[in-house]
């Protein structure tokens, strides 16, 4: 197994980094960064990034990309965050909805939607979570009723992020109610400007606020059905796994630890900070491991391998780590730094308020643990041990089964882009 980057990857990273260090990008990134509960419109920044061709480098050229390897897209994602680019739009639009469209969409759907997403001219969000269907996504109630050649969707979706800025929603709805909890679900691309769509704000503790989306008989053309009708559940599980590389959470953790170090050094330049060294070392070591876990998933995805356990491990580890760093780091800036509203102090205050959502979005930590626990049976079958008492396997469950039993859509990103 290789743990380093190739020369080509290093060269590509350097090019991306140079592009992102321009005065224009820096200024736009600063304008797009929220603070104190105020959420600016980040679309101008993304239009700029789209012009630079940086948003979807791994998509085929005909769909607005550069045809580069998926791992190059991860390199771009890393550099975006390291350059101070708020990444919610990128994660929701490119990494989740765009990627899902690329994976499951028809050629016509890809041709129609992907180029605009890649140019930063159109934005997307997922609409999975409902008031009574969060981690238990199989409880969703939104209905898509046939209407001529298309459908009309009625239901309520909640806790999405950036939704008031987006043009496209990836919506899960029942096309055959009564078929069973996990049957009869379909996925649709919904025009967020269509009649019957009402987006309202749900203020939250973070800088990015939640949304409620009411769908009142919203017309959706038949051509906007994504994948086969009634077969949305397996697609959803694949989509959820793709969300769980852990890379985005890792990058938050990295950024927040760096901000804490900046605050420490700025606050007392002459100190060795002996009282903090053990914890800093532990964070740094855990971050290093976290990066490897994320890239294990990413390289697997690049080879069309989706390992549900590896994604659950990566998601759990990265989100818990980022949350832990945020909770620790908020106490690092001193009173003077807070009073002066230093960059690190503002970042860490924002991080602390964002952090509770990390272990909820894209599958709660509890759901990730359940996925791992359910996979123990598979692991046990692969590697039998010798026992003084004979093992009794009462179940032959597998990772795939466990995901079906635990759909793992939390009040968060996977359902509604809560990040």
């Amino acid at each position, binding site marked *: *197994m*290789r*743990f*380093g980057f190739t020369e080509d990857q290093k060269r590509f990273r350097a090019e991306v980094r140079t592009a992102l260090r321009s005065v224009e990008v820096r200024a736009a990134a600063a304008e797009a960064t929220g603070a104190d509960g105020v959420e600016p419109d980040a679309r101008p920044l993304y239009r700029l990034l789209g012009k630079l061709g940086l948003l979807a480098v791994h998509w085929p050229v005909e769909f607005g990309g550069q045809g580069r390897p998926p791992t190059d897209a991860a390199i771009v994602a890393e550099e975006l965050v390291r350059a101070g680019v708020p990444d919610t739009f990128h994660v929701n639009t490119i990494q989740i909805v765009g990627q899902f469209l690329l994976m499951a969409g028809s050629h016509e759907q890809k041709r129609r939607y992907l180029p605009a997403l890649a140019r930063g001219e159109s934005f997307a969000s997922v609409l999975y979570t409902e008031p009574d269907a969060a981690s238990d996504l199989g409880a969703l109630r939104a209905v898509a009723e046939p209407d001529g050649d298309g459908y009309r969707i009625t239901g309520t979706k909640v806790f999405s992020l950036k939704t008031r800025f987006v043009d496209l929603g990836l919506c899960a709805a029942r096309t055959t109610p009564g078929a069973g909890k996990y049957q009869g679900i379909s996925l649709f691309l919904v025009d967020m400007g269509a009649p019957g769509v009402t987006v309202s704000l749900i203020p939250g503790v973070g800088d990015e606020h939640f949304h409620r989306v009411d769908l009142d008989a919203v017309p959706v053309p038949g051509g906007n059905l994504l994948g086969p009708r009634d077969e949305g559940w397996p697609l959803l599980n694949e989509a959820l796994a793709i969300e769980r590389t852990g890379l985005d959470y890792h990058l938050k953790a990295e950024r927040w630890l*760096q901000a804490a*170090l*900046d605050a*420490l*050094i*700025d606050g007392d*330049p002459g100190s*060795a*900070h*002996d009282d*903090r*060294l*053990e*914890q*800093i*070392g*532990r964070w*740094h*070591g*855990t971050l*290093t*491991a*976290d990066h*490897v*876990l994320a890239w*294990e998933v990413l390289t697997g995805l690049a080879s069309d391998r989706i390992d549900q*356990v*590896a994604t659950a*491990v990566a998601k*759990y*580890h990265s989100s818990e780590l980022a949350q832990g760093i945020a909770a620790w780091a908020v106490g690092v800036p001193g009173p003077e730094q807070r009073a002066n509203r230093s960059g690190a102090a503002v970042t860490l205050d924002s991080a602390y308020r964002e952090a509770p959502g990390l272990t909820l979005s894209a599958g709660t930590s*509890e759901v*990730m*643990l*359940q996925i*791992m*626990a359910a996979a*123990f*049976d598979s*692991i*046990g079958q692969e*590697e*039998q*041990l010798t*026992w*003084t*008492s*004979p*093992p*009794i*396997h*009462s*179940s032959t469950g597998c990772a795939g089964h466990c995901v079906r039993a635990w759909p793992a859509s939390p009040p968060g990103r996977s359902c509604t882009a809560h990040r």
Partner: protein
Amino acid sequence: MTDGALGPTRAVLDELGASDFERPVAAGGLDLGLTAGVLVSEELGRAARGNSYRADATAADLGGPAGAALAGFEALPAGSGVVATPRAGGWRLTGTVTVDDVSAGTLLVAARTDGEPVLVAVERKAPGCTTESGCWPPVARFDAASVGAADVLGPLDDSPAGPLGRARLRQAAYLLGIADGAHRAAVEYTGFRRQFGTRLRDLPAVSFPLARALVALRATRALVYRGAWSVDSEPDAVGTAPVMALAMAAETARDVVRWSMQSCGVRAMTAELGLHRYFRLAAAESVRFGDPAALWRTVGADRVRSARHAAAGLEVPVAAAVRPWEISRL
């Protein structure tokens, strides 16, 4: 469990030709790199065996003799288990430290002189040197034990990809194996043991700690394998990787073995499941190459130093990790 050079796994490793794995081709070996040594170490831990590979592999890196035991490495990266003071024609060693095999003829002792770590070869039966095997882990005492100047093998090279770094990664892998072995045992047992009408593992109160243990194991494995790969493939970029891997592996071994014991109930405290071996090993092996807290402080000091250089707009050589005894000079 103190299977040193003469332990029961020795015959197995000899049959495999394990001593050739890491040895360079020029020296008649297979030159498979540290990665191979890490795998051997991990499997020894997973099997809950003593480590008959560690001392010879470390001795080979340091130019010491085969068949020796390691002593005093727990005093690293900070502390002074054995102090070497000069005498006419050599040194006197004083201190009491952990040793990994009381039956070895020669002890390779990590000692300090003027604050700097050195490696000294001491005959086990030399005057002033005694061993105590009635405690766990066993101990070597040096009561002004005299050694000649030629017995000082040299400074204990603490460069990132040097002998000590390599030894730390092997030890980290051994600890990873210990943790993983205990976890496998617990996963297996809780998969057929029934209480409350269901398998133990079907109870979230049991399965969630085991799942958290899986996360810790995967993270630790990532650091250990990455560290070994770096030493083999990108030695200039190793940095604090061996220290991080060892610190994390030590804590993972302690935690995962404890969680595994808890999930299996009282039987874990008997010989029935074999978990007791992992439990005993975890205690001794998690500090054999230093206190994890001290190791983390070393990593933290290096990270702060990097951040300070970056803030000043200076380039930081990746390989220039802070040595523990330099922390206070930062």
